[in-house]
């Protein structure tokens, strides 16, 4: 492979990784935007999303690669079922672990969030065992350049790459529509800006927060499903790392900003793929965290956000 083929290949890898990060980052940023909580357990909801989607596939009897009509019926069905399950899970987490602490100090719900994260990881560990789990190759993998266009290239672009992009973009468009055009979205934006005023205007703040967790959880579930179908492997500890990378993405894009989270996710995706290739996979984590620290210290409002001042 020539150097530019490596670069292109790693950029494609980065794009698919970044799409998954972006979906997770959206959940972080939405929750932070509305209740100023770093939902530490969010990465683990993503991880459980992968295992839950696996369970839905198993329940529907899917163990091998899906064919034509199944792709159009079963796959969307599993998407919906997985997203509903993780959405419900995320709402339940909020109800149990965060909601009673709404009026408490900022750090209290963060500590419970860490607690929930450990519980979820442990549940996955006991459910699936300590070893990585093979995820069946449900989505057909076709080497597009070679098989469809007959181009003989060292670069691999498969239908799975298309799946990641093809599933992520509609989800983001739908989210954008939901937040900017619907009543629920308007309530969410109002609550994020000023909870008390929103309440005074007749918005049911608790229902709005619930909806935020619901949507965030659904996106994390979709990300888990996509991750499983793309990489064909799942580990109980993957939520922690993915979650922190996604959080980095959300911070990078300016926490609270949805376009920021999407772009930040892509950026972290590219960066981690390039780092794996050009520096060393062993250092990628340190690099991502170094970026997280630098952004939080020097530009906590993110690359696109605006700084807000404390009221005295």
């Amino acid at each position: 492979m020539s150097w530019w083929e490596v670069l292109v290949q790693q950029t494609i890898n980065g794009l698919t990784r970044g799409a998954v990060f972006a979906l997770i980052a959206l959940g972080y940023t939405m929750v932070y935007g509305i209740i100023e909580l770093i939902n530490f357990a969010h990465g683990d909801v993503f991880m459980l999303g992968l295992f839950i989607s696996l369970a839905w596939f198993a329940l529907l009897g899917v163990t091998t690669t899906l064919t034509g009509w199944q792709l159009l019926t079963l796959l969307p069905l599993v998407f919906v079922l997985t997203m509903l399950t993780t959405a419900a899970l995320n709402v339940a987490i909020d109800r149990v672990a965060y909601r009673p602490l709404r009026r408490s100090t900022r750090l209290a719900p963060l500590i419970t969030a860490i607690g929930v994260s450990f519980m979820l990881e442990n549940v996955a560990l006991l459910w699936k065992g300590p070893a990585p789990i093979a995820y069946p190759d449900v989505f057909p993998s076709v080497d597009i350049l070679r098989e469809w266009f007959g181009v003989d290239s060292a670069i691999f672009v498969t239908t799975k790459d298309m799946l990641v992009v093809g599933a992520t973009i509609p989800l983001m468009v739908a989210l954008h529509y939901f937040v900017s055009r619907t009543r629920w979205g308007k309530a969410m934006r109002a609550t994020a800006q000023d909870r008390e005023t929103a309440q005074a205007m007749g918005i049911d703040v608790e229902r709005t927060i619930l909806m935020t967790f619901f949507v965030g959880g659904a996106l994390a579930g979709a990300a888990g499903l996509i991750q499983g179908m793309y990489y064909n492997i799942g580990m109980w500890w993957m939520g922690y790392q993915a979650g922190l990378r996604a959080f980095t993405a959300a911070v990078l894009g300016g926490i609270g900003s949805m376009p920021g989270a999407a772009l930040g996710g892509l950026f972290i995706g590219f960066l981690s793929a390039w780092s794996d290739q050009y520096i060393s996979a062993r250092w990628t984590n340190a690099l991502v965290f170094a970026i997280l620290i630098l952004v939080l210290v020097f530009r906590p409002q993110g690359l696109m956000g605006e700084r807000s001042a404390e009221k005295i």
Partner: protein
Amino acid sequence: MTGPGVRAAALVAALLAYPFVDKALGFQTVHAVSDGMIYVLLALGLNIVVGYAGLLDLGYAAFFAIGAYAMGLLNSPVLGSPLYGHAWSFWLCIWLAAAMSALLGVVIGAPTLRVRGDYLAIITLGFGEIIPVAIRNLGDITVDIGGWRPIERLNLTGGENGVNPIGRPYLPGVPFETDPVPWYFLILIIGAASLWSMNRLRDSRLGRAWMAIREDETAADCTGVNPISTKLLAFALGASFSGFAGSVYAAKLQAITPGAFEFQVSIMLLCMVVLGGAGSLKGVILGGMLITVFDRVVLTQTTFMVRAAGRAAGVAALTTADLTLWRWFFFGLGLVLVMLLRPEGLAGRRLRPVAVGVDDAEDPMVLEPPPPPRAEAIPRWLRDRAPRGAAADPRVPILEVRGVVKQFGGVVALNEVDLLVPHGAIIGLIGPNGAGKTTFFNVVTGLIRPDGGRIALVGASLAGLRPNAIVALGVARTFQSIRLFPQMTVLENVLVGGHCRLAATVAGAVLRPPAVRAEESRARARAHELLAFTGLGDKADELARNLPYGDQRRLEIARALATEPRLLLLDEPTAGMNPRETEALTELIGLLRRELSLSVLLIEHDMEVVMRISDRITVLDYGTRIAEGTPAEIQRHPKVIEAYLGTGGEQDLAARDRSR
């Protein structure tokens, strides 16, 4: 002997006797107990950061790692350290390890100080992740730049294999090689010494500063506590304790690997702190012991029991059950349950003590009137300080503000505002809501940097100074929305006010030489006097949050006076007070000026109060000074009447006020 004395003696006897009893009975638990004590020591260090200073640290294991690796690398043959192999090596390295951990504490702390609480937590987590990654990868470094290799296969940390062996401590005749008992006593001594110093630190000027930062950083800054150095000190000291713990851990285990310092360790330590009660030494020890026992004894023993029960009942699933796999589930559950049900921890101070007769206190009929302030009650030391202010050149105003400008985005909050506070004057600052009065206070006290203009205190510019530095120069303030340190006692609140007038350092706070003792007891006496003067004398030991509203206002003034100010800035001091309380407070302000020639700048909405006690009044409207003059002039000033009543308002300002 008294009850607590007997209990303490019994505890010491039990701790000393334990390893011999254990040996005699053949339990062989000394090893495990010593290991548990190392974690308790770590938790105590973390408690300084989390419990005292209120900085959530999710990467504390990084300091543990640095302590362990400092000991490991300095005192082992792996990297060819010259310190290895001497009798004194361990005893020297343990101090070096603590120093290196403290240094890392400062390195990690320094960039994070400007960051908010939850972001700071994530940054510490980031460092906690980076350090093990670095340790793993620095065991085999090769830098390859186009074939040129300046560094090839350099081993800095032992990499994935870790460091092994590590030199043991050496004392003549003490078998550190074969017997766990000397280790137990070594750790016990380090632990006891740490506990002793932490206890003393907590009850010092430094401990109070940490708690003030935890309670309200802005208010602490405006009370003379430097948040940056205070937080850095918490990080450094917290880290140094983990340096001791880490080096003992390394020497005891004889081998360290990067896996021992992962995120989970940080969380387990956090669990110990939170479970027992952040900020309480007893609580942290209790939490640490409970978790260690739970982890090492309860989980394994219950697993045996469940398996035995499973075999007896013939349930196959139970015979292979392994509860130790649930370890992290229980830790997570513990964190959630404690935060939800008992956020102050098992041994922490109850947040909402059942105050006897709360209802009575809230009933205005039984509310005892605040005692009228008396000139005789003014603490002597405040009086003694007063002439110094008066002796200065009376022609130089205490505060001189010229052309101060502040913009927020496109909004001009302050537009070329001038204001003069002569020595011993009471100056009123009034204006409609949003006129920029509080912004003006924030600019003078250094919370907000002005975009232009000059601010001088007795002729010296305040430009660029942090709020705590301005307090040290003699400017104290209160806040429009009361900002006390709610979880500290009334007395502690006032003592924090004295922070910038005290000098004790870490060594002084721990060792308490006579000078520190004298300083501390003087500060306490003065605080009590101030409380008596402000009518809070009998409430010194109550938590500030439990005071009724009027008392909280007066406590804020007492705290401000404790900073020994030359200029006092009061932001709506009578807001929300009943007429009687307002009367007493007005009296108090007048008294301070009369007796101490203290200068006062006063924001106040109660026109009766402002008109009565102010020498001169400045009126702001939309950030611009629209009038300045004596109360009588202000009442007649057409622009003021217009600003308050709108154009065409015929009623006189004072008339409106009288009719209220």
